[in-house]
């Protein structure tokens, strides 16, 4: 249990400050740190979220893996026929793209509801707001873990020259999750105040699925002079950079530094923004939910 001080901690000498230090970076960072310390809690709740959906079913969470495999194979076959690509090349591309996309889409879609859905907990138990955010991102990581089985299977069926570069997927994933946390915080707080955001993110995510090179290959479009100019617009899509840094090492493609530079830049800017939002609106969330 932590001390709960609704104003500046330990500054009892100045109790009469109007709307005192409720809005400070210190309180924002305290929230993030205190939430991190409760990782047993969100770790447990994240697992609970996985099991929740499959209670009393025989296959249980194996369904996560199965449905990903079915979707990936179906889309892989469909689009490899459309674009006349070799299935052995294209299927891993689509499958890993989908697996990574699920993490992104999960953070965006559920992120908008992260505080709205936990309104009861927020209003009844004093816990850091970040607990709910970590729980959500952890849940996405667990789903990713289940889906890795699909990737492993594909690497067996369609062997690729995987070297040590495959390990780059780990920092890439960590970077993606780090962005998941700041994004969930920001979108969660905004969506709690403005309830149009959740349906809005839903449709944006659906649109972005097609704007991100999941069922198509970015390099192919760049090499085609007819569409190259339009294809370059994909560079503006922040999701693509994160997808690329995770996917390239996983399917043995050449690693491009450019994607990493952009992803790291987004991380820095995003976290700066998140701290600002958390500082200014953290204490308002219980009032808004």
């Amino acid at each position, binding site marked *: 249990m932590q001390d*709960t001080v*609704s*104003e500046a901690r330990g500054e009892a000498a100045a*109790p009469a400050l109007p709307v005192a230090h409720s809005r400070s970076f210190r309180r924002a960072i305290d929230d993030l740190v205190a939430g991190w310390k409760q990782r047993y809690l969100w770790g447990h709740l994240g697992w609970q979220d996985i099991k929740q959906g499959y209670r009393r079913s025989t296959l249980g969470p194996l369904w996560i893996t199965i449905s990903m495999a079915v979707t990936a194979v179906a889309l892989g076959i469909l689009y490899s026929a459309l674009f006349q690509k070799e299935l052995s090349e294209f299927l891993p591309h689509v499958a890993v793209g989908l697996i990574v996309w699920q993490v992104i889409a999960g953070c965006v879609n559920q992120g908008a509801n992260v505080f709205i859905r936990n309104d009861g907990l927020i209003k009844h*138990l*004093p*816990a850091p707001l970040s607990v709910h955010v970590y729980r959500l991102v952890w849940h996405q990581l667990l789903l990713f873990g289940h889906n890795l089985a699909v990737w492993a299977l594909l690497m067996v069926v369609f062997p690729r020259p995987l070297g040590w570069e495959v390990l780059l997927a780990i920092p890439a994933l960590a970077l993606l999750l780090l962005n998941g946390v700041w994004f969930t915080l920001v979108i969660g707080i905004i969506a709690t105040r403005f309830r*149009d955001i959740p349906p809005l993110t839903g449709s944006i995510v659906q649109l972005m699925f097609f704007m991100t090179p999941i069922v198509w290959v970015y390099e192919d479009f760049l090499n085609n002079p007819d569409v190259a100019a339009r294809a370059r617009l994909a560079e503006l899509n922040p999701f693509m950079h994160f997808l690329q840094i995770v996917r390239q090492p996983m399917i043995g493609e050449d690693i491009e530094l450019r994607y990493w530079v952009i992803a790291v830049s987004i991380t820095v800017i995003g976290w700066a923004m998140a701290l600002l939002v958390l500082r200014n609106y953290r*204490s308002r969330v*219980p009032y808004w939910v």
Partner: protein
Amino acid sequence: MVSIDVHDASVNFPIFDAKTRSLKKAVLGTVGRAGGTIGTDSKVPIIEALRDINLSLRHGDRVGLVGHNGAGKSTLLRLLAGIYEPTRGSAHVSGRVAPIFDLGVGLDPEISGYENIIIRGLFLGMGRKQMEARAEEIGEFTELGDYLSMPLRTYSTGMRVRLALGVVTSLDPEILLLDEGIGAVDAEFMERARERLHELVRRSGLLVFASHSDAFLIELCDTAIWMDKGHIREEGALRTVLHHYRGKDPFANLSQEAMNRIGSPAGPTAGQAS
């Protein structure tokens, strides 16, 4: 040192209805204000749930909160729990806080009572090992026996209260905040809970208890705060405040045995004002 110091605190809730709680309204509202014509509807109505609350509680205080529905009892408890930070003024709470507000919240009906004990403890900041060490003792206190391994949805309301009270009192909290709803337990359990709560307050902490039941208030508290329309109308000895609030002396009909049990001197100004 356990203490609660609330200074001129107010809690105002903005009420966004379906229309104002949207991005479009906010964007258009700003445009309207800039143009100087529209924008009269951009004001969000506000409910003053608490205003100008001044409160100072120390170790050993056992405070009852009374007042009509909507008087601000629950909001005050949440202010003390640190859930709502005051929109004006300040609230300093130091000490480990353990609240029991809504009993349905934070308890998962699908998992066992035992697991719920652990999760509840984790929510209140305990470690997993600490909770596992305590779970057995909590189970004993709640007297739920084999039910602890059953899913929580099979529990009655009273059994849930037992569970929640068992967890909270086992955590050695310094500040216990109870909202009404714990009335669902039977008298025999209440007796044991009372002893345990008193023991806790003596050892380390303070208790704030909101209730409509005079009987429970008399059992658990010695001072009281009468909330009315979001501010403190009266603060003092439980008997005096209850007398003014109800318009009759609630201690008048108590048996001598009950009086002895709660350890209250018979005088109407008994107990210390906080």
